[in-house]
């Protein structure tokens, strides 16, 4: 595809897209194939998606639907096979600047204290860490971790460790936060608490967040929009707007409006046959 054709297609997509001008990230006709022993596997098929500035967008889908692949492509950890990814008007080549990332596993380094773990990305970004110690401590404070700053990861519970990982992603004040099933390995109560804490951080900072989950209620609780994904091949099936009021509470999950949204999403999966295998 030539550059002219590419930009023409992007323009077309811009004109047809909703609020595309506000998009921080644009994906256009993104394909991703893996080579495997059984031949090529299509992990992502024709993904078109705008992530708007300041929105909380969830990617929701069953295992193997390519949601993690999509995130890894956005983080510059993997190359797309064809199509285009634009971040703030620049075509993506490698990990974008201004990015924070949280994985399902916390990836804390055993030999670093909590504080030093939080400062790690700034060391990689070659920023002087001295000026970030105070902000780091303040950030830890907001997650109730101020007193654990000098502890080592193995002294913390799973929920605390994941909070540290979120602090680590937030400290460089990134415009875009990618979260790959960050609470998937936590128990339900810790997960609920962290959902509320994450919502608080989002409403305070209005960062653009791409959040991956396979929990329908988690996606609806946190998001402006939910991109429902399907598998074989991995694709975005439908994008659901969640027009519930903010701030959202855990109790809201029992309201008719919430249940209505959850049912709508579940119907998409039913139509796709996700529940019958």
């Amino acid at each position, binding site marked *: 595809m030539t550059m002219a054709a590419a930009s023409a297609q992007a323009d077309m997509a811009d004109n047809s897209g909703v609020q595309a001008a506000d998009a921080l990230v644009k994906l256009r006709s993104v394909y991703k194939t893996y080579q495997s022993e059984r031949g090529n596997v299509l992990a992502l098929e024709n993904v078109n998606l705008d992530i708007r500035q300041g929105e909380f967008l969830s990617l929701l889908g069953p295992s193997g639907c390519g949601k993690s692949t999509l995130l890894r492509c956005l983080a510059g950890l993997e190359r797309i096979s064809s199509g285009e990814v634009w971040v703030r008007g620049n075509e993506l080549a490698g990990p974008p600047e201004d*990015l924070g990332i949280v994985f399902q596993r916390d990836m804390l380094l055993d030999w670093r204290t909590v504080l030093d773990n939080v400062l790690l990305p700034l060391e990689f970004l070659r920023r002087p860490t001295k000026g970030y110690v105070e902000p780091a401590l303040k950030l830890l404070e907001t997650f109730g971790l101020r007193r654990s700053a000098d502890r080592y990861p*193995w002294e913390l519970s799973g929920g605390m460790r994941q909070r540290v990982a979120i602090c680590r992603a937030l400290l460089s004040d990134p415009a875009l936060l990618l979260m790959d099933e960050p609470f998937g390995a936590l128990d339900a109560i810790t997960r609920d608490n962290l959902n509320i804490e994450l919502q608080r951080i989002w409403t305070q900072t209005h960062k653009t967040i791409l959040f991956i989950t396979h929990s329908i209620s988690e996606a609806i609780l946190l998001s402006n929009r939910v991109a429902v994904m399907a598998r074989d091949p991995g694709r975005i099936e439908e994008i659901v707007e969640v027009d519930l009021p903010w701030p959202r509470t855990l109790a809201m999950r029992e309201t008719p409006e919430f249940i209505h949204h959850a049912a709508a999403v579940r119907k998409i999966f039913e139509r796709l046959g996700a529940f019958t295998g």
Partner: protein
Amino acid sequence: MTDSALTPPLTKTAPASSLRRWWHGSSRLRFLIVFTVVVLGLWEWGCWVTGVRSFTFPAPSLVWRELIADPVWLAQNTAYSLGAALAGFAISVALGLLLSIGIVYSRILDRTLFTSLVATNAIPKVAIAPLFVLWIGTGIESKVLMAVLVSIFPMVVDSVVGLRSVDPGTLDLARTYRGSNLQIFWKIRFPGALPSIFAGMKVAISLALVGTIVGEFVGSNWGLGFVILQSQGQFNTPRVFAAIFVLSVLGILLYQAVDLIERRAMPWHVSHRNRHDDH
């Protein structure tokens, strides 16, 4: 009961009670002491009862007499062996680390160097020791080289395993923040490999001592290996036992030294974790 009623007897028996406390404090040490005394006692008793000749199997008292007969000479020979073993160990650690880094980062080195290292490890290195004496003489160099040769293999193998077994997730994290290869090495790979590296060092320190003694056996005028060989030639078996005793103490101390450095270097590691009581 008041304090004054308690204090006088305590102060009177202070040395004895602190000794008693020490005795009761470490059950492992207590067991070790009792065990050693019993074994030595049986050994001594057995030698006198059976009337076995001292050049066949000497009693502990005779070995002890040899140990203190010429302490300066024994210390000099011990220092010689210790120096050669430590030099060999140091070279082995430094060279082993460099090689393993090369092997981990270069596919060519992995295929050539690592493969040939594994192949040559199958040669009994003791068999090549006479060659070293032929090539570089009977000086300390041939002992150091022997120590390096024997101890470098576990060093390289363990370091390679350690450097390779880095969590791919942490590498993803580093790449997301555009960390350079050098940063990734120093901040992630190397600290993560330390447990394996120290495991290799613990094997290497013992083997370095073995290599030194083998080197001394083949040709030397100094060292504990020389003492053993010379005394054996003179049928002075108690002195052979004395040298072996010094050697085993040396081996234990060197191992403990590496263990101590390990604890200092990575207090965070699972094997050294002591949970604080304050939470």
